[in-house]
């Protein structure tokens, strides 16, 4: 990894990580704190943080958050995006959009030289007429059927606008494919099921990326001089059925109409965390072309296909 390079470029300023208490945030902070000061902001408490991490347990929308940015912050990594489908959409939207607006305001006012948003390939949306591998300049059509992704698309666009308005800040947007690992996101949770439901007659190609590869990409994005939007893919794409067989799980194919009705009701009774429109992710393709990240960031996924898929099972060993 590029840690060696980072050390030689010292002194590196502090990096603020929002939403640091998520699984990915904690992993990221454990990597970043070796080379630079890490300041965390999250409403949640940071259990068992590395000693030199300064954690502020507060809402990013509160006044106190401003204080954190006041003194020589060199970079902001914004991971603080809530994706809890059971939360009310008002609270969801407010936390995500107002929270980001505050971050953008502080970055602007205190002249933070680097801003990195971890967006997602989901902003392109799974669609039957998607190109097999989507480039960065494609329209963000993911918002159509999904209210939760609508937030994410809005965040991506807000940061995009900020990129053009504030040339003084190096703004980076990363759009990774399905992140797998100890994280508790929808794709990892889905592949952790003992019996994996699929849609009868559909077997889309999927792209998965190991969480440590995403962290490596974030590190690359934090290097001085890097700016722009980058898709982050993982190892070579594979069919959903192949992923299930590699993991040694059992797949159960359901007709789409049946699956949709079932998931809708299960969701309503809080028996599943998957909202019904997300079924499109196992129906249509939503994969990204990451050649730009490979060329400009010299990003290269370190984890192979099998290691990436198997990473979802590591979750049971994590507190």
């Amino acid at each position, binding site marked *: 990894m590029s840690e060696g390079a980072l050390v030689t470029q010292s002194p590196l300023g502090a990096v603020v990580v929002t939403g640091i208490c998520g699984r990915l945030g904690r992993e990221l902070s454990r990597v970043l704190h070796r080379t630079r000061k890490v300041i965390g902001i999250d409403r949640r408490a940071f259990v068992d943080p590395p000693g030199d991490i300064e954690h502020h347990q507060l809402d990013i929308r509160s006044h106190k958050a401003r204080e954190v940015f006041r003194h020589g912050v060199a970079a902001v990594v914004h991971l603080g995006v809530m994706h809890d489908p059971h939360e009310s959409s008002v609270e969801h939207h407010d936390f995500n959009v107002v929270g980001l607006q505050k971050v953008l305001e502080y970055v602007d006012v205190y002249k933070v030289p680097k801003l990195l948003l971890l967006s997602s390939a989901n902003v392109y949306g799974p669609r*039957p*007429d*998607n*190109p*097999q*591998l989507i*480039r960065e300049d494609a329209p963000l059509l993911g918002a159509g059927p999904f209210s939760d992704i609508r937030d994410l698309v809005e965040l991506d666009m807000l940061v995009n606008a900020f990129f053009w308005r504030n040339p003084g800040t190096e703004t980076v947007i990363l759009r990774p494919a399905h992140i797998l690992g100890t994280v508790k996101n929808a794709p990892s949770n889905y592949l952790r099921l003992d019996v994996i439901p699929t*849609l*009868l*007659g*559909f*077997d*889309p*190609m999927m792209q998965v990326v190991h969480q440590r590869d995403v962290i490596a990409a974030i590190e690359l994005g934090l290097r001085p001089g890097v700016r722009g939007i980058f898709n982050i893919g993982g190892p*070579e*794409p*594979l*069919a959903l059925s192949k992923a299930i067989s590699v993991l040694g799980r059992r797949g159960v194919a359901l*007709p*789409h109409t049946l699956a949709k009705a079932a998931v809708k009701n299960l969701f309503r009774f809080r028996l599943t965390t998957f909202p019904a429109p997300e079924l499109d992710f196992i129906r*249509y393709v939503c*994969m990204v072309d990451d050649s730009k990240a490979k060329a400009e960031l010299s990003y290269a996924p370190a984890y192979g296909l099998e290691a990436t898929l198997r990473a979802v099972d590591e979750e049971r060993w994590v507190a």
Partner: protein
Amino acid sequence: MQRNALARLSDVAQSTLPFLARVAQAASRAKDELRVRLLGEDFEERVRSLQRRYTTLGGDPFGFDPETARQAAMVVAVFHRLYFRTEVFGIEHVPPGRALLIANHSGQIPIDAAIIGSAMFYDARPPRVTRAMVEKWTATLPFVSAFFSRVGQVVGLQENAMRLLEMGELVLAFPEGMRAISKPFAQRYQLEPFGLGFMRLALRTQTPIVPVAVIGAEEQYLSFGNVEWAARALGLPSFPLVPQLLVPGGAMPLPTKYRLYFGEPMRFYGDPDDDDRIIGDKVWLVQQTINDLLRRGLRERRGVFL
């Protein structure tokens, strides 16, 4: 009494078992012969050479699966060799490396694409996978979408075609589009206006175009016309009136004789973003070449089924 019956049974067994074994042998020989006749001597070798290609490419992002393709090829062989008795002319014109096959489209269901794919697998040396550009609508159909991507079909978008050509693949496109496939019988072998997208693609990627004329597909289903309001109401791309469907067994296409004519590769130069009129002139050349191949094929054939 019992011993007697047993003895007789063993007698019968002794005399008939060798006979049965011979029958079984003959049957398996006949099966092998049919297999060789259908699939050719080097079927497995052809499959392996395709597998090797995609292994060296590091997998196919479009989801081509050699095992599914192998089974599909065995089924299509029955149609290719026995049912439609395809004759292939000029397949050696298809250059190695990337190329764009441009063909006339017809026949209510895209059997023509399957037969072209089959010819490129069974009759071309070395075998090639034909990546046909299919209608976006098929991606929403269960089974069809999964099957198409496993046998190498790709949703018809410029980006996808470009990526395939950059991989050095053989891309098949029908620039007449859906209009042509649901043509009524009266308009057989009359080309619909070509779209311009394929020419821009060829110019942009410097890809040779191989014109292909398919003869035989246009007579496989006799359609009296396309009921557009019914198609719209059912959300289908077309709703052809095909009376043969009412006859028992009429769902099968008529066993017309297929002829595929591959023309010499055509190379075009110029600005891919040129005016429609300039691109249209180049497209016209391709269309005329296919038309000529069609006329030649129609002249040479003795009958629809012969």
